[in-house]
């Protein structure tokens, strides 16, 4: 049994809000601005450093991270984040301003260039931009590049084709680029149905966005044929890098015929998720598309590294150069592992998923899967199963998605778990599988908070402590 820390102060939730601990109002009389340009006063929490240290230490103990225990959240690739990469990113010499002259930040530019090179090799791509600050931003860049590419050929297209089981970001990114989304129904085997693809593709197809292995963990074995079909109608093939951890060293998107791809460094390359971000979503492209990459791009010139604007650049997708501190960590991780480590990461990630699935009693309808599997909770509610798993000291899988599997439990243990950890994880799955509805619906009991009312949160919106005050 596991019990999460619970810090409970008086009546105000599990730990009082900063504002409840101490708030002060400060007048702005001495601020050297005319009255009409300044506010009269400012009211915010005012606490001492010891109080803040305790506040955040307690809150942290009421949070679960990869260093707490297994985190097999499907599609999220929650690996261990090596500590030394934090030290590298914290080097004072990394803290430069983005408007520095290129001559004065050769170290930064060389690191960027090296990371681009690493990623190009890993993806089998010809050029890489590091600017997108997240995977979805990378998708958006891919869409913008596709658009620029077609426009450069005076070939305006209106549609992006996306499999029904794809990540939601694919749909949203295509839409943000102004495209209509054509949803591609999956085949019975959980993969792309070539007939359906044939039907979906047309002269309007700007791109097909594909995850491979897909969200069921299945490799699209017909990838060469798929690529051919897309290219035949003049479309581009986009690779969603969310599942790249399955393929490291064994297959490269570039070799499969993908023209554009993004990498999730906060998944495949172990930069920490930080409770939701920051990540980074570098985009790789084939040689043909390199001219469309965002501005600026790094290259090695005669006098050292320099920044330049690609010939037909789509412009900017981030105000500066993206999430630099995250990129440093990705560079350090890739360099730490090298060829052998990267290949091994993938091998062990796939082995772990297969081993865990073999120990879990829930049915796994689609296979052979790679780094993740989607089990079905069957008669149980997958969301309830997840809540109950929390009581066993593990993080549950992603639930209820993809919808191809009813009551889906999308499970990705990654390579960082060993056998005994996977066994304990399987025990948690199996214990819940054997429990009745009542026990499951009462869960969780051993976490800081009990089951939380989602409906109340949405119906009675209170998004700030000011709103809480007004509500009470």
């Amino acid at each position, binding site marked *: 049994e596991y019990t999460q820390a619970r810090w409970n102060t008086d009546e105000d939730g599990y730990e009082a809000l900063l504002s409840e601990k101490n708030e002060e109002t400060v007048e702005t009389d001495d601020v050297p601005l005319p009255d009409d340009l300044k506010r009269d006063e400012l009211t915010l929490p005012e606490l001492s450093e010891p109080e803040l240290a305790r506040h955040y230490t307690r809150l942290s103990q009421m949070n679960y991270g990869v260093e707490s225990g297994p985190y097999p959240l499907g599609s999220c690739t929650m690996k261990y984040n090596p500590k030394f990469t934090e030290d590298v990113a914290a080097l004072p010499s990394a803290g430069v301003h983005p408007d520095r002259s290129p001559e004065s930040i050769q170290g930064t530019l060389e690191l960027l260039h090296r990371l681009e090179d690493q990623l190009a090799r890993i993806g089998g791509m010809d050029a890489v931009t590091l600017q997108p600050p997240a995977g979805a931003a990378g998708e958006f860049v891919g869409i913008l590049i596709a658009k620029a590419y077609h426009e450069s050929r005076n070939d305006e297209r209106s549609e992006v084709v996306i499999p029904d089981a794809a*990540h939601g970001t694919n749909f949203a990114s295509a*839409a943000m680029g102004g495209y209509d989304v054509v949803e591609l129904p999956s085949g019975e085997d959980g993969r792309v149905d070539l007939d359906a693809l044939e039907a979906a593709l047309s002269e309007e197809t700007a791109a097909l966005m594909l995850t491979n292995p897909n969200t069921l963990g299945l490799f699209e074995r017909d990838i060469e044929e798929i690529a051919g079909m897309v290219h035949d109608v003049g479309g581009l093939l986009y690779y969603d890098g969310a599942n790249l951890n399955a393929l490291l060293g064994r297959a490269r998107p570039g070799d499969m015929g993908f023209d554009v791809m993004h990498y999730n460094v906060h998944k495949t390359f172990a930069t920490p998720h930080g409770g939701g971000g920051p990540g980074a979503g570098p985009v790789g492209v084939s040689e043909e598309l390199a001219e469309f990459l965002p501005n600026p791009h790094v290259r090695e010139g005669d006098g050292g590294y320099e920044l330049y604007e690609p010939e037909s650049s789509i412009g900017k997708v981030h105000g*500066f150069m993206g999430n630099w501190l995250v990129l440093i960590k990705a560079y350090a991780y890739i360099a730490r592992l090298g060829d052998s480590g990267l290949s091994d990461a993938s091998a062990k990630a796939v082995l772990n998923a297969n081993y865990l699935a073999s120990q879990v009693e829930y049915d796994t309808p689609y296979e052979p899967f790679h780094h993740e599997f989607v089990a079905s909770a069957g008669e149980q509610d997958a969301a309830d199963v997840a809540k109950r798993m929390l009581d066993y000291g593990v993080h549950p899988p992603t639930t209820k998605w993809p919808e191809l599997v009813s009551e889906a439990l999308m499970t990705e243990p990654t390579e960082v778990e060993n056998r005994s950890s996977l066994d304990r994880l399987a025990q948690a799955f199996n214990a819940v599988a054997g429990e009745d509805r009542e026990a499951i619906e009462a869960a969780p009991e051993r976490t800081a908070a009990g089951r939380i009312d989602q409906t109340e949160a949405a119906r009675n919106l209170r998004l700030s402590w000011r709103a809480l005050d007004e509500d009470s």
Partner: protein
Amino acid sequence: MTTQHSRGSPFAPHTDEETAAMLAAVGAESVEELFDIPDPVRFDGEFGIEPRGERELRAETRALLGRNDDLTEFLGRGHYDHYVPSLVDHLADRSEFLTSYTQYQPEITQGFLQVLFEYQSMLVELTGLEVANCSMYDAATALGEAATLADRVRETSGSTVLVPELMREERRSVLENYTEGAGLSVETYPHDDANADLDALTEIASEETVMIYAESPTVRGAIEERLGEIGDLTDANDALFVLGSDPVALSVLEEPAAVGADVVIGDAATLGLGTSYGMGLGLFATREEFVRQVPGRLVGASTDSGGERTYTLTLQTREQHIRRERATSNICTNQAWVALRTAIHAAWLGPSGLVDLATECLEAPAELAERLDDLTGVKAPVHDRHQFREFVARTDQPAEAVRETLEGKGFAVHAIDDHLVQVCVTETNTERTDALVTAFREAAK
């Protein structure tokens, strides 16, 4: 002598024995068997990347980044260096925060949810608006998202977004990329001594105008003095007024809500991150009426089975993982951990520390400008405005030559036009202003 974990990934804990047992359990002879990849697309695994030890890599990267020149930066224009207290690093690096995912299971992630709720709450206080989200990537993408929000919420059609002539071109480029898909075009309104030229803006604004964007402080550090009128003008055209600012400035400037701002965007990482080659935290706050059109994540209060107050992600149906192509944005991974850092930094300063810091941001540039103005060949400040953190100086010498000379002497400043130099001064470089003035004397003459 065998080294159990020396081959392969040092972060995969499998011993050879374990691997063998696990393969047996899944009925495979080798790991390769588990890969269902057709031969034609098989790769041989040779990227040509040499693995290195932790110690070697730390030395290597220290040497690599050590190639950056050690300049004292007087740089700003949207990315600022405020001193980040040590507490921020120590608390934000706690692994429960740093290595967690988005809070899809709120019962086990109350800690981070409360942090984000508190972050939202502080921005609500600073902006006067009712809703702030958990984060966007940076100010530029937040601006882009504001434009698509404006487009979505406007009841009548329209296709123009108005932005100031004085604006980072990078930010504008991001805005254009975000708006192009929605069929919006970005147009410019002129300035008058580094503030919006209100007459011209009034001319340009029309029923086609979906949104008017203004900044205060502007990219040149000037406080925008007629925000209320811009707000009125926006209202008159049934458009959204989007204001760019940052938490330090907002600590003393008139509340955006009071001047009619509908959305506030900016870089909240001016607190919490320090200089980081442009990495940011997109601040995004807006009116309650637009809450269902907000991009990004929102944390709300709720109650748990024990009747205690708790926090949870809410209104998730706006988001891409549920609403897909009809989502308010494609954003998924955001900058949550930076928001944690910003919240700690803001709380460490408190309202008194924030007001003190903002006061210093008003006094320091005025003082430095005066000193530069005394130099031969320099006029500073160029604009007759209240300057926040930074100001523009006119140099008789070409600005680029001045910049280069200063760089040779160990100082970085902006050359923003043929004879215009921009200088940013905060608490992290004030102690070097004497040396800067001395160097400037040489560079400008």
